[in-house]
Every structure is written in C-alpha cells, then in structure tokens.
C-alpha cells in the first residue's frame, strides 16, 4: 500500500508541484494550507510522514510539530520541517520541538526524496 504523506504549506504553487513529484514517486498525498488544518488532518488521517512549512497562517509549524511530537499517539510520525528560513537558531528550534529533519527552500529534489525514503524506512 502506498505510504501517505501530508504536505502542510500555504504556498499553493509549491504544494501543487510537490504533490505532483511525490505522487509520481508513488506516494499518496494529502494537503493542508494552514497550521490548524494541518494539525487536524495529521490527527485524523494519520499520515506516514509530514512535510511541514514553518511560517503558516493560524498556527506556526513549530507549534504543530510540538503538539504532535509531545503526544504519545502521534510522536512516531516523522516530520520534515520545510522552510525558507535558514538561521542556525531556526534549526535549533526545530530540533527542540522534535522535528526529524530540516530541509531549506529552495531544495534539491533528490535530497528531499532521499530523506523521505529514509524516514519512512525507519
């Protein structure tokens, strides 16, 4: 059965392109365009992996990440923080909220695919 990936990003172009790439790579995709929606879909749909932007309307990516990672029921869900912010402090915050990977935009497609594969296999 195809693995389910949740993409949470308010940039619709990016969501559409990522969806296309990942579908072609054989994944099942669901999407959300704000933090609140992302959190709800994560809880309801229980995806195998989440690609999570940081600057999101309603609830920022850190908070979404923290709420999932500090919840026994969802903490096993791998989360890739996916953001255009590249400060050391941002990465550190990402680690603190328990994210499994941090990928900066613009990204190398092969790197992203490799990380997804790696996290799904573990």
């Amino acid at each position, binding site marked *: 059965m195809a693995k389910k990936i949740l993409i949470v990003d308010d*940039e619709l*172009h*990016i969501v559409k*392109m*990522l969806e*296309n*790439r990942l579908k*072609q790579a054989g994944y099942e995709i669901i999407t959300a365009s704000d933090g609140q929606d992302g959190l709800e879909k994560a809880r309801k749909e229980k995806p195998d992996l989440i690609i999570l932007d940081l*600057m999101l309307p309603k609830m920022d990516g850190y908070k979404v990440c923290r709420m999932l990672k500090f919840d026994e029921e969802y903490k096993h869900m791998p989360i890739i923080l996916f953001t*255009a*912010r*590249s*400060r050391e402090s941002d990465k550190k915050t990402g680690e603190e909220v328990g994210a499994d990977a941090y990928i*900066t*935009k*613009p*990204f190398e*497609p092969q790197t992203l695919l490799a990380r997804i594969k790696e996290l799904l296999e573990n």
Partner: protein
Amino acid sequence: MKNQGSKTSFSSPENSKAQFLLIQDRINYLRDNTDFASVLFESLIGYAIIAADFDGNIIAYNEGAHQIYGYAPGEIIGKQSIEIFFPKDFIEVGKLDHITEELIGKERFSYEGEKVRKDGSRFPAQILLTLTKGKNSKVVGFIEIVQDLTESKRAEEVLQSSEANLRKVIEKNVDSLIIVDRNGVVCFTNPAAEALFGRKAEELIGELFGFPVTAGGTTEIEIIRRGGETRVAEMQVVEIHWEKKDAYLASVRDITERKQAEKAKVEAQQQELQMKDDFISNISHELRTPLTSIKEGLSQILEGLLGETTEGQREFLSMCLEDIDRLARIINSLLNISRIESGKVELKKELLDISALCRNIIVSFSSQSKNKGLEFKGIIPKDKLEIYADKDKMVEVFTNLVGNALKFTDKGHIHLLVEEKEGMVECSVSDTGCGIAKEDLPKLYGRFQQFGRVYGPGEKGTGLGLSIVKNIIELHHSEIRVESELNKGTKFTFRLPKYTPRELFREYVVNGIKEAVHRKESLSILVLYIENFAVVKEKIEDNRIAAIMNKLHEVIGSSLRRKGDISFKNTRAILTILPVTKREQADIIARRLEQTIGNYMSEEKLDRVIKIGCKTAGFPEDGSNADELFDKIRVAIG
C-alpha cells in the same frame, strides 16, 4: 603727652620735635658710648643703625645706613633730621604719637613701616627703636635699627601671587582633585570633588575614600551620590608628598554624560544593525519562496515528470536551473554578510590544524584545476600547525580564495602557501591569473564588485565572496592583504596567531567563568603537571616527554567523558576545565586522575623519574576571575 589723655597728642612735626628735645640732656652719655658700639655699627651692613640724642641730633650713623638711605655720614652726623626717622606724612597722620608712647612705655618698640631715602624714594622697612639710658637710668636718646624689606617683600609678593594662582588652578579645576593618604583616608578635596561626590569638603575629609588608589593608569569608578544617583568617573592617580607624608593625588573626571552618549550610540548602532539583519532575513525568506517553486517547476519539466522534452528545451532548462542556484547562493551570502556584520555570528573556535585543512582544500580543488590545465600546488608544512579558529569559516575562506584564483587564471599555477612566521601562521593563495587593476583594488572587498568577469562555463560568482572572506578574517581579529598586478597574477595573504595552549586555556577559563556567572554555577580548573620538569628535561629526550604528555592527555581524555570538559596541554602541563563543578568535586576528580596516572606511570616504569603534581582551583571559591584562578595554579603551568 600722656597727661593730655590722648594717644594722638603728637599731631604736628613741632610736637614730635619737642619729643626729641626731651632726651637732649642724654646726648652726652650717648656720645661717650659710641666707641663700644662702633664695631657693631660698622659690621652690620644691611642694617641701617642710627643713634640719636633726645634732641634728634644724629650722633652715630653706620655704613649700612649710608647704603640704605644714601646720605653720607658727613652729611648727617650732628644734624637733626626727623625725616630720616619718620616720613613727613607719617608725622602728619599722627602715627608718631603712638610709636613714641609705646617706646617710652616699653623702652623698645618694633614696627613695620616706610622709610624715605635721600633721593625721596620710599622703601618698606622693619624698624626697631630702643631707648638709651644714662647711668642713673635716665633716658638719654634712642637707637634705631632698620632693615630694608624691599627684597623680602617682593619675594613674598611673588610667593603670594603664585600661591593664589595655584589655589585658583585647584579651585577652578573642573576635574576633582582628592588627596588620599596611605590608609585611604581623604585629606584634601577641591570644590569640583565636592560637586562630583555631592558632599561638602568637611564631610569628605577624614573619611575613607572608598576606591582603590594605585598610581598609574586610568580606572573607571562609579560614584553613588547621596540620594542614589550614580556618576561614572575616570580616575588617574599619582603618588605625591603631602604634609611630609606619602600620599596619593587622585584626579577624577566625571564622564557620565560621555558614557551615556557612547552607550546610546552603541545601542542605536546595534538597533540599526538588528533592523538591517531582520530586513535582509525577511527579504531572503521572501525571495526564496518563489525561487523554490521556480526551481521545482523547472526541475520537474527537465526530469520529464510532465512529459517529453526536446534536447534544446532541456539545455535551456539546465541553464535556468544553474542561474537559480546562483541566485540562491547570492541570497545566502547576503544573509551571511548581514549576520557577520550585525555581530550575530559567534565563531565556533577550536584548535585547528591548518596544514591538514589546507591539504584537504588542495584535494577538493584538484580535479577542477586539472580540468583547466593549471598546476595547483600546496606549499604546506608536514607537521601539525595549530591555530585557534572556526573550522567551517576557514574552509569558506580558502574555498572562496582558491575558487576565485581558479576562475581568473587560465594558464600557469595556483599556490596555496602555509608557513610559520614570527609566531604567526601565514597563509596565502597566489595565482598567475588576470590580476586586478590598481584602481579596482580599493573596491575589492565591496559587495557585488566583480572584476574581469569571465565568459564560458563554470559556476558564476556572487560578487560577495571576498566580502565574506574579509569579514571572516576580521572576526578572527586579523586582516587580509592583497598584492596584484594586471595580467601577472594576484596574491591574498593573511596571518593568524599560532596556538599557544596557555592563551587558549585562559580564553576558555574567561569564557567558562562568564558562562558560570551567567548560569549562577561554579567552575573548576585542574592541572596535572610534571613537578620536576627541569630534572626530567635533562634525563629524557624532548620527543619522549612529548609522547608521555600525549599519553597522559589521552588518559585524562578517557577519564573525563563528561560533555563540556575541555582539556589542553603544553610541554609540561595538562589543563582541564570542569564546568559546573565545585572545587571539592574537582578535588575528587583530581585524586581519581592521580591514581589512574600513577598506575600508568608505574606500568611504564616512569614513576621514579617523573613526578606528577596536581592542582585545582575553583570559581568562585578561589577567585572571581581568570587571573586569580591562574595565580592558584601558576606554579603548575610555569
């Protein structure tokens, strides 16, 4: 006169003349006694001595009087000259009455007054009048001894005016002047000091000054005024003699306003940099987001995810992607520069073998240089050469410099030179490339300055590389130099201090204490050292000592597995910093280490030759700063 009941009964020259007439009948007596006085008279040059009878007839007149008044003895002896005794106006205002009265009453009277010379000029004088008496104690006349005070008056005036000037300088001085004795007690203050301290002189004098006074140098002190207002002042102290004792003169200048202005300026600058950094940070975020979809869209087309493409389409798509990556690099570099300039970058300094680092650089650029047909040679010492620097940043420096050299050199060579010079490590990257025109050199490190752009394949520059290199080298407290000649080549050189364990250790202790203070925790340092180093040095070769020290370092390293323990060594000592460790805990660790090392030494049969000592010092127990802790272990680090 007395019976007239008035002290000013001599009110005219006639009256005073009458006064002299009273002693007329004693004149003979005085004449008889001139012989015994004559020797004295003549030898006292500098004093005018005149003897007169009651009539005022001058009967003796010495050489001193001649010199002072100007009258020759022949002109004056035997004559009556009241004016030689008293100036005319003196007689007129009646001061004479008082003098006569005093003289008759006390038989001797001394006063300071004015005298008139033959030429009419006046001079200040000290005058002593003595009555002369006959055998039956009857007054027969008087003797007047006069000292010319002109010179001493002048000297006094000079002294007084210079003293007044000095007082003015002290009182009007805007700097506070405070004299403190050896016990730290204030003995003098000027008005500026009263104003600065907000206390009156009498409140300050006799009290303890309360600030450490040591001669030489400038110290900054904080003065808390009554009411709690704080003033910042700069104090300079010199040793002086004050009332025959050793003391200190402190001059204190109020710099509160200057300090506040400086602080405000720094804050404004920081705020400006922060705003700039935030701005650039936001802009890069905003730029990267659309860049992401452009890159991803083009990548998917190129990869064929959206259907077949022609070779021509793919070629153009590749070119687009290359430039998108370049744009991303520019954004990253901009962000980097902004962070360095706003002081946001904290170097992760470590002991770094620059030789090894440069050898890696050579390897990583070897294929690129081979492809271009260039000789890329490293002239690097075989031995470890350590500096204290941020590894990632140093790699960035060399990558930028070598990358530039490759870009601008078409034939010839590129040399990466590392050498030790005057205790420093000098690194240079030189090429035989196109060089930089003299007029372009000043703009070299400016942003987006690109010279001699090259056409053709290869990664394009961002125009920010050298700017970053310069920033990184400056963050390491050094500077980069460039020599270049058009069409001949370019050479970039910089120097960094060679690592000295002691300085490095000190820096770590200073930072450790800072951190400990910040976290309200303690810190200990521990030193293991060869106690009998002089003996050991004679008996054992340097190489062997170094090997032993390395082994000891290893032993310590493996027994201090806790994260955050930092350890260094020099030729005779190994220093370890133990953060969040109290002195007593450090002592326990020390005993454990001593035992481990003792075992090792006896296994190696070195325990008879080498004596290992151990010292610990704890913050805050043993001192409040790095130097005080170092004092505790000075014997160990040598």
